[in-house]
């Protein structure tokens, strides 16, 4: 469960976020949709505590991200933009490293890593060094790494960027599966179809402000029978 209220952030004279409020519930996938530079990444970065807001607050499962960043991080699994791995470490080592940093001890750690490798179908590259992995392989390993401590909340920044069709499909299945287990998932994207296919709730962001917010159906009801594409163009142009 994520509660965001009145978040604002500026970098110098650039306003990245301007009074953003929304909530994301457990058992649902919430999509932050907006053009590049709209403030989606800044919002996620504040949620996963690498940036501090200038105003407003945000809580993850009632833990304030500004007051208790370390506790908030325990609640979170994060797939940041780019998903860099350590090229000299194997898939297994990359995942286990984060497990150790989350305080997971052996033998539970090895068991958990093996479980994630099996569930994400990473057996083939489990003991290969990450150097030279494809974008799809890297994203999968980064996702396994984000899930190593079994977080209830998952933040993903442009997760399908650079993925081919097959990888995108399996990622979607994966996220659907996690949602059905009751996890709270927030992802950002600038691709309309992706959000439409994947998300239960949609937050449309432009120029640091929320221009529309609701379920896919509610947005359709509000904007008549227009496609999400048209809604997007209309709201972004109107703001």
């Amino acid at each position: 469960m994520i509660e965001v209220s009145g978040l604002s952030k500026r970098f110098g004279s650039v306003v990245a976020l301007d009074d953003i409020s929304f909530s994301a519930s457990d058992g649902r996938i919430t999509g932050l949709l907006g053009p590049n530079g709209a403030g989606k990444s800044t919002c996620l970065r504040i949620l996963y505590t690498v940036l501090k807001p200038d105003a407003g607050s945000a809580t993850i499962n009632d833990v304030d991200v500004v007051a208790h960043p370390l506790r908030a991080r325990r609640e979170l699994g994060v797939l940041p933009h780019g998903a860099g791995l350590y090229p000299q470490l194997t898939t297994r080592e990359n995942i286990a490293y984060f497990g150790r940093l989350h305080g997971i001890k052996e033998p539970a750690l090895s068991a958990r890593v093996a479980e994630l490798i099996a569930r994400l179908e990473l057996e083939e590259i489990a003991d290969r060094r990450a150097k030279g992995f494809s974008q799809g392989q890297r994203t999968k390993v980064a996702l396994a790494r984000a899930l190593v401590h079994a977080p209830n909340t998952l933040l993903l920044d442009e997760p399908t960027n650079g993925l081919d069709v097959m990888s995108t499909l399996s990622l979607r299945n994966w996220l659907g599966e996690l949602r059905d287990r009751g996890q709270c998932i927030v992802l950002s994207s600038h691709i309309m179809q992706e959000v439409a296919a994947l998300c239960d709730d949609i937050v449309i962001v432009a120029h640091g402000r929320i221009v529309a917010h609701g379920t896919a159906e509610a947005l359709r009801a509000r904007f008549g029978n227009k496609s999400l594409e048209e809604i997007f163009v209309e709201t972004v142009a109107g703001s």
Partner: protein
Amino acid sequence: MRTPILVVCRKEVVENARDRRTLLSTLFFGPLFAPALFAVLINVMLSQALSGMDETVELPIIGAGHAPNLVEFLTRHGLEAADGGPTTIEDARAAVARGQYDVALAVDPGYALAFRNSDDARVTLIVDRSETRATATSQRVRFVLDAYANQIGMLRLQARGLNPTVLRAVTIDELDVSSAAARSVLLLGMLTYFLLLATLAGGFYLAIDATAGERERGSLEPLLTVPVGRSSLLLGKMAATICYMLLSLALTLIGFRVALAFVPLEGLGMRANFDAAVAVKTFLLLAPFTPLGAALMTLVASFTRSYKEAQTYLTLVLLIPTLPLLLASLLNVEPDMSLMWIPSLSQHLLVTALLKAEPLSWSYAAVSATASIVLGAALAMLAIRFYDREALLG
């Protein structure tokens, strides 16, 4: 708090052990390259200093027939009359100016007569003073000619019943009080420079990796989302950097221990005071410098925006150990308590004293270690503050 530091440190050690660049700079540059370069350098210096004295030199002599005794004397001292050389003074001048010969000798046509009459027998030495390479040869020829003139002069005095010492009012004896070990310090003084350089080089790539490298690979942001404070992450990375620096230092000392066995320091009346005990003491004296070096390199790297930029700036940091050496040789400083507060200079002075087989002052060593560690801790805190900035992610 302690466990995450160990987790990060262990991961960095393992990861960098698989990285060719790190291995090259830790295992090759310091331990192999520096001692080898050092040994070659000293060998060249020694062979330059020793050679020339017994080597045969071709000396064109014009009018050799006028002075057969002199020519024989020259030949006995390794100065062979050149066959097919110039036959006139003009030719000889041209040949020396061309650089064909370092030096040429012309015997005056009136030499034989003057010599027989104990008059002023003249020879002319043709040299090119602008040619530094030829200076040693011309000095040697002049030295041999002087010896010949002296010898003949003394014989003539004795033949006239005079003691040859009447011509020598003052006799100079030189008494060198430096020990063999102290003399070799001139050369071994370079050792501290190579050791500090190898120590820094060992941690070079890890320090870059801590900030610029992680950021460029995109692994920094995920790392910052784990429930571990940034100070622990950075301390773990610095600990790994220190491990590699100590490893590089130890291996370099072993390299020097081996390399110095192949350097004929005895040829210059010197003794390389570098046994295992001295190597261990050197390690202990230089070890407190590693936290300082690691913190400094990490701090500099955290200012930079990219891997390449970090490399450029850190190369400048590698020049830091040259400063004390430069200062010490320019000002000819002696170990002093106040100098022990200056890291790298204090290590240089202590290690040099150790190599001179002078008694080691433990209070000096303690102050040197304290100063380095305190400054290292201050720089580490500064680096942590930098690591805490939001702009770190770029």
